[in-house]
């Protein structure tokens, strides 16, 4: 039910946040994260699970380099090619789907053939559309395509399926499984949905309320393709029981 923290592997994500604070409206410094450590092996899919507002997104922002005001250290994997899927799709409304995806490509890959990627995500007929013409589900697909277009070494996903209806979310989860399964990409996903985490991730990190720290780690050794509904149900029950034991 837990695993030990180990380091030393070059192509891994290693994060240590000793302390992260923010100043509230009254000018008081509030601890958001304290003593949080996590390590993801190369190619591993990790999930950060925790209650709303506990600081999950802050952890992701720190890993993405968008928030550098913290005490601690974050080591990146590989060649520092980072793909991010934000909670909001964050597309440029004045660029078409194709142009939004190509925006992040380095100049030497500007004309890269993205047909497979776009096809996998079901965007082939939407390449010339503007984001304003897309549903939220399609916009999220574009955001996922954009993150994968750069062949990331590290992929960060911030609740990528939130506020989608379950059928769309399930289909997108399958597409994400296919994309991460066919690439050696280290992935860290923030979610509050334990079922989703068990379906997708290899390594689960449960965060406490503020100030956030990892209270429980769990590795899933069963291949993602073999995780049946029954397996997901049994595992989530087991994990909920472990969390309630921790609460006591």
């Amino acid at each position, binding site marked *: 039910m837990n695993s030990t923290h180990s380091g030393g592997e070059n192509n891994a994500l290693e994060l240590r946040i000793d302390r992260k604070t923010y100043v509230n409206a009254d000018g008081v410094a509030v601890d958001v994260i304290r003593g949080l450590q996590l390590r993801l092996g190369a190619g591993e899919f990790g999930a950060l699970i925790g209650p709303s507002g506990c600081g999950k997104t802050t952890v992701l*922002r720190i890993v993405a380099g968008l928030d550098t005001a913290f005490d601690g250290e974050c080591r990146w994997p590989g060649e520092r090619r980072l793909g*991010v899927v*934000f909670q909001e799709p964050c597309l440029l409304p*004045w660029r078409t789907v194709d142009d939004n995806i190509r925006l992040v490509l380095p100049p030497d890959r500007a004309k890269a053939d993205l047909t497979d990627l776009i096809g996998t995500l079901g965007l082939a007929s939407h390449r010339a559309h503007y984001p304003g*013409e897309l549903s939220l589900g399609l916009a999220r697909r574009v955001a996922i395509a954009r993150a994968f277009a750069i062949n990331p070494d590290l992929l960060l996903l911030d609740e990528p399926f939130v506020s989608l209806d379950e059928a769309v979310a399930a289909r997108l989860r399958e597409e994400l499984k296919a994309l991460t399964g066919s690439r050696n990409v280290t992935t860290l996903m923030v979610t509050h949905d334990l079922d989703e985490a068990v379906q997708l991730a290899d390594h689960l990190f449960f965060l406490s309320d503020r100030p956030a720290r990892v209270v429980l780690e769990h590795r899933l050794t069963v291949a993602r393709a073999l995780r049946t509904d029954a397996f997901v149900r049994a595992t989530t029950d087991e994990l909920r029981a472990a969390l309630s034991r921790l609460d006591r």
Partner: protein
Amino acid sequence: MLARVLSLSALIAIWFVAAAVAHSRLLPGPLAVAGGLLADIRSGELPFELGCTLARVVAAFAIALVLGSIIGFLMGRSNRFNRYADPWLIILINLPALVTIIFAYMWIGLNETAAILAVALNKLPNMAVVMREGARALDPRLDDMASAFRLPVMTRIRHVLVPQLAPYLAAGARSGLSIIWKIVLVVELIGRPNGVGFVMGTAFSLFDMTKLLSYAISFIVIMLVIEHLVVQPLEQHAFRWRKQRA
């Protein structure tokens, strides 16, 4: 379109009747003004004077647009810079155009530099105010996206920043153009030996209403041409994505 044509035709008809009734050199009819206009075009006087004015408008507009946009952007992005620059901006906004023009002519001299600078200084604070609001309205999520994907600086400016500022830039440019046209005429009236303002000043001293009207009309026509052939097509191109809605 039909309504516009009818409305303008009615205006010309009223003018025609009023001129016929008044029968005075202070209100020449449309035909007399059109004759004067054609004569000035044939002699080359009108194109030359319009060209001089247009060159001043373009120069002053470019300076006000570029400097005003940069200053406004910096004020919108930095509270500290805004605190220091805001009093200057308030003074410049409230300084009457005529005062700026006279100061410029007295300090720099009766030359092109003073004329263009005076016009640019009149428009610059308005442009800065508009762009400050634009910079304040920038979407931080798009900024995060650009940072996370390590977009190069020029890509960020061109594809993330400028399109967000474009509506403010367009609004500032459009209002700026209309203000600058008017101020350039005053600048020319007071201290330049050519341009539409200079000609109108001379016509005023000679009570030559035909010339005043012919230059005023040609001026309006030029503004309409710029509006329809330059400003509107540019806006339509820049905002073509807004037509697309789910």
